[in-house]
């Protein structure tokens, strides 16, 4: 019996965002936009969901009078990501080759 994959992370864009944030100390909104290629609206929605789950922290500030959104992965987010990757490895390792 497989452990269920975390539904918050098991979404293409949310997983992309988390995979980017796990590798950096902090990232601006434009970085996530540039690396994922997703629309601003879609990224905003997914960031809110990740923030609500406590997986990321979002800081709002200003740079040269322009609003600046900076995201950081939380301890809970790191643990959830690690757990997701471990569960995923189990799936892939134990999955029959014919599937």
């Amino acid at each position, binding site marked *: 019996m497989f452990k269920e994959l975390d539904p918050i992370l098991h979404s293409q864009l949310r997983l992309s965002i988390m995979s*980017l944030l796990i590798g*950096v100390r902090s990232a601006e909104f434009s970085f996530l936009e540039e690396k994922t290629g997703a629309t601003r609206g879609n990224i905003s929605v997914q960031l809110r969901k990740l923030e609500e789950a406590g997986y990321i922290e979002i800081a709002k500030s200003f740079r040269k009078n322009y609003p600046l959104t900076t995201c950081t992965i939380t301890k809970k987010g790191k643990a959830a990501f690690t757990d997701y990757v471990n569960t995923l490895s189990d799936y892939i390792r134990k999955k029959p080759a014919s599937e």
Partner: protein
Amino acid sequence: MENSEKFNEESALKVITEMIDATKNDVRSNYFFFLLWGFLVLAASLLEYCLLTFFHSPYHYIGWPVLMSIGMIVSLVYAIRKYSKTNSTTYIGNFFKFFFLAWSLSLILVLFFIIPRNNQLVQPVILVMYAMAIFISGGILRFMPLKWGGIIAWAAALLSFFSPFPVQLLITAAAVVVAYIVPGFILKSRK
């Protein structure tokens, strides 16, 4: 990128790999500093060797303060420009920021006290400091040419301790080609 209903385990693994790789590439952009300081130290060493050996100039050391000052200004301007364009902070980037700040201050402090007391130690000490910076950078970036560069610079430093001053300048010039310039170009080509 939209959420897909067909998002399965294989797709998830692919997304993770691609995104983690996307954050790794930026590290290689540090080649600029290796090439800049490599060429500046090479020029300063050869210039001093020529002024000392062929022209017997009392100002044989003049290349060092001039070229090193240029290096510091260019590095500072480049780093500020690069930092203002960067929209993410990496753990490695943060480490290098503090490491090179500490390293530069240590080098300045050491040279400030060594230069008036014992000129014979200046080149070997510079090489020891360079070796440390290169070797640590190679280890952090997991880049073999820099690790070897560090080891070669340490060997050059050791050789310098037992060599006369003009020979030390040639050893320094040779060491920066192997330890800074060659890895810098390899790093640049792998961007």
